[in-house]
């Protein structure tokens, strides 16, 4: 019994140490220091670097959006904040900044919502994480069941619920990856009937349009706007939320649309 408590305490200590030493936190601090000195591009470059790390968090996307906004690039700020919102949907600061950036843009269609309706409230990670916790509890219950201390229905119930939540979370994350939000940046995007430069134009989306990506073919993305316009646009003028597709954006004064 005593050994178990020691193991739990050690695990919590390890988790806390990892959390405080998370690389993103240090990079955010470095970027914030540059921001405080008035070096907005420098701050953006630091956060942009962090956004390419596998341990990305909503804070990095959020701060990246703040930097883009302060640099006057509302569409890129929107793309970063949409990514932050996907990772932290209940954050009031993200909602406020999104509203502010949208207010600066004229003539853009209504922004598309999340890929799955309930993602406006919780993230796939939260749902799937809860599922994983329940599965962990179910695993412990299986051990107790083997020892004859609980009935089989206990682990079956908890495990079933955990598995269901885990699968729902994985599915939502998959849908989010398959149909990411994209934002038109730099200039208006021409929608075409086919993924080819010579195809007939079916419409345009002004810079700052928040759209859903329905497919991809080579360098072309199939976009659907909030008001139903649909067509292929070259991905040069479109930034997927949470994507730093071009590392050159991570340098001071980096290009807006890759090189």
């Amino acid at each position, binding site marked *: 019994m005593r050994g178990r408590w020691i193991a739990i305490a050690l695990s919590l200590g390890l988790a806390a140490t990892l959390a405080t030493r998370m690389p993103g936190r240090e990079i955010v601090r470095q970027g*914030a220091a540059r921001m405080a000195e008035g070096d907005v591009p420098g701050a953006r470059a630091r956060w942009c670097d962090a956004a390419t790390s596998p341990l990305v968090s*909503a804070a990095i996307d959020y701060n990246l959006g703040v930097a883009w906004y302060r640099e006057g690039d509302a569409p890129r700020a929107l793309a970063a904040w949409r990514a932050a919102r996907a990772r932290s949907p209940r954050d009031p600061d993200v909602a406020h900044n999104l509203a*502010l950036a949208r207010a600066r843009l004229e003539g853009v269609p209504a922004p598309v919502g999340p890929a799955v309706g309930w993602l406006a409230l919780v993230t796939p990670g939260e749902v799937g994480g809860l599922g*994983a916790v329940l599965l962990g509890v179910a695993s412990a219950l299986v051990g107790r069941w083997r020892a004859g201390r609980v009935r089989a229905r206990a682990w079956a119930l908890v495990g079933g619920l955990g598995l269901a939540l*885990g699968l729902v979370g*994985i599915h939502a994350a998959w849908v989010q990856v398959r149909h990411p939000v994209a934002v038109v940046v730099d200039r208006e995007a021409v929608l075409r009937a086919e993924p080819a430069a010579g195809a007939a134009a079916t419409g345009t989306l002004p810079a700052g349009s928040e759209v859903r990506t329905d497919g991809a073919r*080579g360098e072309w993305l199939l976009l659907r706007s909030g008001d139903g316009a649909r067509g292929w646009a070259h991905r040069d003028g479109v930034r997927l939320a949470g994507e730093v597709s071009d*590392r050159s954006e991570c340098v*001071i*004064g980096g290009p807006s649309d890759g090189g």
Partner: protein
Amino acid sequence: MVRQLWMLLAVLWWASPALAARVDLSVATRELVEGQVVALTLDVIDGKPDGVPQISAPPGLEVHYQSQSQQTTSVNFKVSRMVRFQYQLKAVAEGEYTLGPVPVQVAGQPLASRVVRLTVGPRPETPDRPYVADLAFLPEEAWVGQVVVLRYRLRARVEVLESQWTLPELDGLVAPREGDRPRSRYALEDELGPMAVDESFIPLVASQRGDLGLDGAMVRISLADRAKGRGRDPFDPFRMMTPSRTESLVTDSAPLAVRALPPAPAGFTGLVGDFEFAAQADKTQVSVGDSVNWVVTVQGDGTLEGFELPPLEAVDGARVYQSSPRTGAQVRDGRYQAAGELTQVIVPTAEGTLAFPPLELITFSPTQGRYLTHRVEVPPIEVQAGAEGEAAVESFGAAPGQAAGPEVRDIAGEKLVGPAFAVALDPYLGWLVALAAAPGLGLLGLTGWERLRERRRALEVAPGPSQRIARLPEDPLERAALLEGALREALAVRGGGSAASLDRRAAAAGLDEPLRGQVESALRALDRVRYGGAELGADEVEQARQAVRGLEGR
């Protein structure tokens, strides 16, 4: 009379599209080089043209029609229709050209576009290699505070699917807040054939003097490799991606020498660049209490960030308020172009003529290498009697010396702590769920295996009677007991009863001959051995074994 009115209305209705229609001619860039091919667009807005408009190009330019598209947009219930004609414009020879006006017939009515002036420069030195990347500052010599444009360019005679640049750290250079970072793609044609050019521009402000040149940038390019075999790619199950190979290139260095500004005179605005100023008042005859918007427009190739007009010198009979400046910038044809509109609101407080002394704005001109003074005049304003305080000043900031309040809450600032730092689990969900479920599944699997093993053990068949008597002990009595036990067990299994309860007759009752005789004979022989003192010979043993095998059906 009524009939004529109806006819007039009909004519107006018929002609209305033509009356409202507009024609717009635009070209991707107005500064071309010999051999360059760019897109030329003719938009007919709110009108349906009669056929494809023909654009006649002057000698030295070639225009080829490419495609046509149509789109309808609705903004605030106002439906707007646009027909777009795409052309390809090729610069054949150096020179200055004027393209247009392009005549367009819309519903029988002749319309024309505005003209577009183009400059075609000499053919650049084009590489004979399949692809080449370069990096350059435009210009390569600058002054502190001047905006330079960093151009990075990839020219290729082969199909490049994607390029990713990694630029070095830009020490001493700061990106202005205003100014886009455009990317342009076009084709050049020379004797070696077509060459695709992909160039991007970054405006930067030189913030310190010295050698700020860059050593070189790296670009990774993905080249189409159609000769490559198309194996099954797990990431491209539908085979939508072009086979490719990746190459890395490093550009030559990009020199940039930055000089310090000479000592600045008093009143220097901080603007570095070649600027032009103009001013205009929206009215020059007002009543007391009215407001006059005096608007100064400025445009040039330097950054206008943070620039504000110095307040007009105070004069009796007026108050002056400063409005927030509106500025913007863009990079076009590799040059930074900034423009701003700065407004001061003059509210007369007394009758008479208001005469403000001109504003003197001192800027530094990089092309002339010296400070220039621009004089911006305020026209005399005639003020008539009126009611002070009736002014309808719609938009102005604080009077000079006062801080302007924000119109809306600013964006929420950066985050340094909080739950937003939680690492997003989405990409790892599959692993996480699998990891959490693994111990339980492992234990369940172990339980299942154990149960299966137990069941198998239970199902494992004990050695049958004939197997048990395959090898017999030495002691005759033990032998006889073993043979009898095996025989009775075989009988019990055959008959479905208890071995101990079987007597000889009952045991053999249900058997057919000759098995019945064999069994009875074997049992008798064994009884004789066990209870009568007879010898157990090989015949008796074999007889018993045959009886057992017979009972087992072998």
